[in-house]
């Protein structure tokens, strides 16, 4: 009884094994072949390109290293470790180096309350080499993505953030202002979007750091939008007198306003000739 019932089942199993079901090893082998072939092909096609990028990168690092040794190492140390004359640059990131060098603040012209803006001493290529070198030594904030620098964000949101975080030093119209002991917050008119972004991200000199957890990249873009709006929009109130508030406005009204009143009074009371 057992045999006739058993034999069809066996037969079915045997047929199944032969026709419908592949060995588990087969699929593994197939995947392996696929991976090897695509990977190999990819490697074949891209070896030359990536080799070029790496070469270009190491070339930049190399150039940057030389520029650094010649121009920066006196104060910042040959290994970026810093000296008594200058801070360590380990971990400051490409953004910081780009900001300091491209705005001419570094190399320092002379010691003083703070490094002042001046024409950049290096070409764009040299600046790129420098920041690539510093970023290669230790990771830090990188160059901001150009999509954040277009000034196409929300200007009113940016204005609110600017008033809360920036306006006390840089003035609500971005005209700059005085700090302690001869230092000052520079005017922001005409400063490039990239430099504004980098300054917020890295906090150059005495400016506090506004990292991405404090002001998100989108909000930084909004602030840039607001500053761009200030640059592009004329002062509605007429002559803005440098936007310096009571100092310039007071001086103007004391000299010209009161001067005019005094002149008219003299004319009114003088005997005519």
């Amino acid at each position, binding site marked *: 009884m057992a045999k006739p019932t058993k034999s069809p089942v066996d037969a079915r199993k045997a047929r199944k094994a032969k026709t419908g079901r592949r060995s588990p090893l087969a699929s593994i082998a197939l995947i392996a072949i696929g991976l090897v072939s695509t990977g190999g092909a990819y490697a074949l096609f891209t070896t030359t390109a990536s080799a070029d990028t790496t070469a270009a990168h190491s070339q930049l690092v190399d150039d940057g290293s030389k520029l650094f040794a010649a121009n920066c190492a006196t104060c910042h140390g040959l290994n970026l470790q810093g000296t008594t004359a200058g801070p360590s640059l380990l971990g400051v990131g490409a953004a910081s180096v780009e900001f300091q060098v491209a705005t001419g603040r570094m190399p320092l012209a002379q010691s003083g309350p703070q490094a002042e803006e001046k024409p950049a001493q290096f070409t764009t290529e040299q600046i790129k080499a420098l920041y690539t070198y510093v970023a290669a030594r230790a990771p830090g904030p990188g160059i901001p993505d150009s999509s954040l620098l277009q000034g196409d964000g929300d200007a009113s949101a940016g204005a*609110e953030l600017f008033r809360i975080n920036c306006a006390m030093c840089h003035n609500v119209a971005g005209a700059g202002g005085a700090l302690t002991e001869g230092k000052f917050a520079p005017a922001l008119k005409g400063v490039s979007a990239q430099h504004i972004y980098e300054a917020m991200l890295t906090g150059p000199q005495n400016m506090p*750091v506004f990292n991405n957890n404090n002001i998100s990249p989108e909000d930084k873009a909004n602030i840039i939008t607001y500053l761009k709006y200030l640059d592009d929009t*004329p002062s509605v109130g007429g002559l803005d007198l440098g936007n310096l508030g009571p100092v310039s406005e007071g001086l103007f009204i004391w000299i010209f306003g009161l001067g005019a009143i005094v002149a008219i009074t003299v004319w009114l009371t003088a005997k005519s000739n």
Partner: protein
Amino acid sequence: MAQHDDGVATPGGDPVPEAQNTAAGSAIQKAVPYEVSPGTAVVRTDNIPNPGFPPHRERQTDLDPKKDKRAERQVTSLFYLSIVGSVFAVAAYIAFPIIPGDMGSVRLNTLLLGLGITLGLLGIGIGAVHWAKQLMRGDELVESRHGTRGSDTTRARAVEIFTLGNQESGFGRRSLIRNSLIGALVLTPIPAVALFRDLAPAEDPVPLLQHTMWKKGTRLTRDPSGTPIKAEDVTIGSAFHVIPEGLNDEEDRLEEKAKAAVLLMRLKPEDLNVSAGKETWNYDGIVAYSKICTHVGCPVALYEQQTHHLLCPCHQSQFDMKHEAKVIFGPAKRPLPQLPITVDSEGYLVARSDFHEPVGPSFWEREL
């Protein structure tokens, strides 16, 4: 030139009717020297004689008809200029309208409108003064004060009117009406007193000024979004502008913010000089201080991350964040109050308590 010391002489060619000089109360006299009335003061015998007016000097326009004509033309053109200005203002207002969204158009519109109106007003003003100075009568005059006492008949008539009024209204006779009227008049300002009294703070302001929204466990959140801040977000050199959690939902959020605003900074822990009893007030170099200046309450937030100075922009008070916001310059007398902070179980910064002293400037009944 005619002498002016006799008070009667009329300057050359200027006809003044004598009747005008004698009109009561409005006497205009020609250049009479000032005389002290005897009886009002001791007349000194060695008095310096009153020199009187300087001799009258003819103007160019009095002497030269051409100059006179020219001044006339000038005055006329000034008035015409005023007309042009007024018309120009209207024309500019129509021709350069304010385009919504274009701030440049607001500026142009205001500028031209203002220029036109200025021309309109100044043309009249300068023209009128020029006219008066150059062409109107130019000799010096004395106008004596007229007496303030009325004539006897006027006075008698006034008394008569009052008596008649009293008789007709019965104001003096009907004392009940009169007294009730006086009572009613006295009481009419009372509602105003009650109303204006309510302008004063409803609560005693002293406890309001002594406490802020901060209490144990209140999270520190970003201004203006109100999102909580993790300790790890505050990197070295960072400055965060902080409001207490839930401030944006408060009905009187601006009043609360004016007291509770905080500046959060991270210094290297070794840079901090912490006094005894305040060891737990910072969290790994993260310190929170009131942003309200102890001088007159300006928001003091000009933080320098290298010198760790905090500058108040109003009167240049400087606080040293390395020494618990000690005053190092300027008119502020007390350091900024520190907000004791720590982190909660989720890693967010929270207050340990309210400020231990009232924030902001000194006020009455402040103990410290």
